[in-house]
Structure formats: structure tokens, C-alpha cells
């Protein structure tokens, strides 16, 4: 219970803000870069994110979706209507130019997550490093978060499951979404299953707070937009090649 109470008082947010960087002179930040030891708690020193280049995404390809399902033990049950979807391939057509966009959409790991705002139990939460998760131990399956999410990123589990993978517990009556491969991040890996699987290199994973990371460099050079940016959710997943 300690952790949930901490979250609810937003204690983690204020306590960990002190660790984000050491100021040696006004305007100069000293960034300490070191991998987390296995017994060390995550901190807000990192903010994990994805950058997706929609121009590189192939319309017919679903490699990222399949890799995600393989990685997290998501198996077909009753088909796409009710099965869990952690990533969806979305096609958008611009009304005026008729330009067609293809992109994978998953939980955007919002810095201001509406799913967390509406969750009555505290089960939806944001880790110090920006990853938004569901604590299924306290999720009551009310699905408020699914209604609140502007990206349709979450799935409800309708059926009794078995043979879940050790790193990805999932079960009937709870809600789930992309975890940004949190089990890999906690092992110190610097990639996700989807990023690795993309044959066109359309996805980049990394630390948005580290100016030297590949994702930050790409963002600095070419920019990257948030889906539904007007909602000001400060998403951790950014897209290139979209107009708004």
C-alpha cells in the first residue's frame, strides 16, 4: 500500500524531481549517465519514449505488432474485436491532400495521462521514468481508463488466460496496454520488441531526457509531433511525417 499512497500524494513526482540534474551554474546542467543497478529504483532521471517516422512505415507490414504480441505472450483468442491490442496499425487520409499515412499506435506514455486521472483505484499509474502502467493487483476492471484514453490504447481482458509469460502477467477482468517493454528497460536494454522488429527502421527508442540519445538527436534535427497535440498530454511517443 505504501507505493500507492505515495503515488496518490504525488510524492514520487516531487521527491524525484530533485535528481533530474545537478545545476553547477545557472543554465548549465550536469547530466550523470549511468545504467540502473538491478536493485535500484527507477528515477525521473530518464524519460523513455519512441519516435516513429511515418514515411518509413510500410502500409502492409505488421511486424511490430507481431513482435509485440510474441514478446508479451498475447495470443489470439476470439479475434480482433475483443482480443488485446497493444499496438494497432492505423491508416489516416488527409482530407484535402488525400495523402495517406501509416503508423503504429500504442500507449503514448503521456506525461499527463488521462487514464491515471480517471482511475478510481490508483491502479493506473506513471512510473518515475514516465512509463504508464496498470497495477493489475488493484485494477477492478471498471474500464474508465479505456474511455479516457484519447488514443484507444488500452484493452480489457475478457477471457481466462493461461501460460502468461513470467515478465508479462495479464489476466481476466483487468485492463492492459503497451508497457514500453518495461521488463527490457529494467534489464538495462535500450530497445523495445517493436523497434527491433521494424524492417525499415521506422521506430527509435530512447531517453528523451538525454540530449545525446539517438531519439533526442533525431528529434532535434527533424522534429517530431504528438498525436492530438492540442490535448497537451506531453506524450512520450512522437511521430514524424504527420501534419497535426
Amino acid at each position, binding site marked *: 500500500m505504501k507505493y500507492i499512497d505515495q503515488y496518490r500524494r504525488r510524492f514520487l513526482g516531487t521527491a524525484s524531481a530533485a535528481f533530474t540534474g545537478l545545476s553547477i551554474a545557472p543554465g548549465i546542467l550536469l547530466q550523470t549517465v549511468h545504467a540502473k543497478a*538491478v536493485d535500484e529504483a*527507477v528515477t525521473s532521471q530518464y524519460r523513455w519514449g519512441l519516435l516513429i517516422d511515418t514515411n518509413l512505415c510500410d502500409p502492409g507490414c505488421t511486424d511490430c505488432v507481431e513482435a509485440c504480441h510474441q514478446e508479451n505472450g498475447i495470443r489470439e483468442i476470439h479475434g480482433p474485436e475483443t482480443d488485446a491490442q497493444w499496438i494497432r496499425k492505423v491508416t489516416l487520409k488527409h482530407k484535402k491532400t488525400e495523402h495517406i499515412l501509416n503508423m503504429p499506435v500504442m500507449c503514448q506514455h503521456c506525461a499527463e495521462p488521462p487514464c491515471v486521472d480517471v482511475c478510481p483505484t490508483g491502479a493506473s499509474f506513471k*512510473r518515475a521514468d514516465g512509463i504508464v502502467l496498470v497495477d493489475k493487483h488493484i485494477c477492478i476492471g471498471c474500464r474508465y481508463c479505456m474511455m479516457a484514453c484519447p488514443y484507444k490504447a488500452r484493452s480489457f481482458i475478457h477471457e481466462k488466460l493461461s*501460460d502468461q509469460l513470467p515478465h508479462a502477467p495479464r*489476466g481476466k477482468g*483487468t485492463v492492459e496496454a503497451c508497457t514500453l517493454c518495461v521488463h527490457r528497460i529494467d534489464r538495462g536494454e535500450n530497445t523495445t520488441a517493436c523497434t527491433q522488429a521494424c524492417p525499415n527502421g521506422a521506430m527509435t527508442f530512447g531517453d528523451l531526457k538525454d540530449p545525446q540519445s539517438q531519439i533526442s538527436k533525431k528529434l532535434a534535427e527533424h522534429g517530431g509531433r504528438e498525436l492530438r497535440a492540442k490535448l497537451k498530454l506531453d506524450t512520450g511517443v512522437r511521430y514524424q511525417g504527420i501534419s497535426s
Partner: protein
Amino acid sequence: MRFASFLFLLWVIPLHAGELTGPDRDANGNIVPTPKGEACVEPAEVMRREHMNLLLHKRDQTMYDGIRTKRASLNECIDCHVTPDANGKTARADDETFFCSSCHIAASVSIDCFDCHGDRPLDMIKNSGLQK
């Protein structure tokens, strides 16, 4: 034909010897499955009374702080306590021969851990062809 069935019996008897005698039972007749490892993380008396507290503490550490150490991790319990029989099969969470259920059924304390957590080690899931 006869020789073939004799050979078959020779093969079958040792494999199923465990089934004939049944699983190990304690003085009260409750099933006591045999673990794989040499010693548990704590003595049996401590584990009997405290396993739920250890698991709860570890669960919150993993969930909120990303601390995935092995001690008191449910995955490690499963790796050690869910072992295949001679046919390569393991007891499933609902069976009275499953490590956790052997006690929990006897004590009439229901657990829902295995609604979400897999009830056998990753190797076994892979062997079943469900996972690459």
C-alpha cells in the same frame, strides 16, 4: 507381439511408478511437492508464515520501482517449485499437487495469483510450442 508388449511394460513401469505410489504426503495426508533447488530463500517456518508479505513487498518494488531482483520473486518460486514429472508435465495451478495449491486447498485459502501469473516456468511454456 508378446515380446513387444513385454518391452512396452518394461518401459512403462518405471515411468509410472510415481503415479502408482502417488505424490509425497505429510503426516496429515496433505501433498508435499518436491522443489528443485537446494534451499529456499528463508527457512520453511518463516516461509509458511511470511511468504505473502515477502511477495507483497517484492510485487510493489517490481511494479512501481522496476526492481526485478530474484529474491522473493514469484517467478523464482515457480521456477523452483513447479517441476516437471517423468512425462515432462507439471501440475497446473488448480491441481492439488501444484505447490501453492497443495497447502492452499488444505487450508481453504483461495489465491488468485495465477489468474494473471503463469503457473509454470518459461522453459515449459516454450516447450509447449506456445512461445518461441
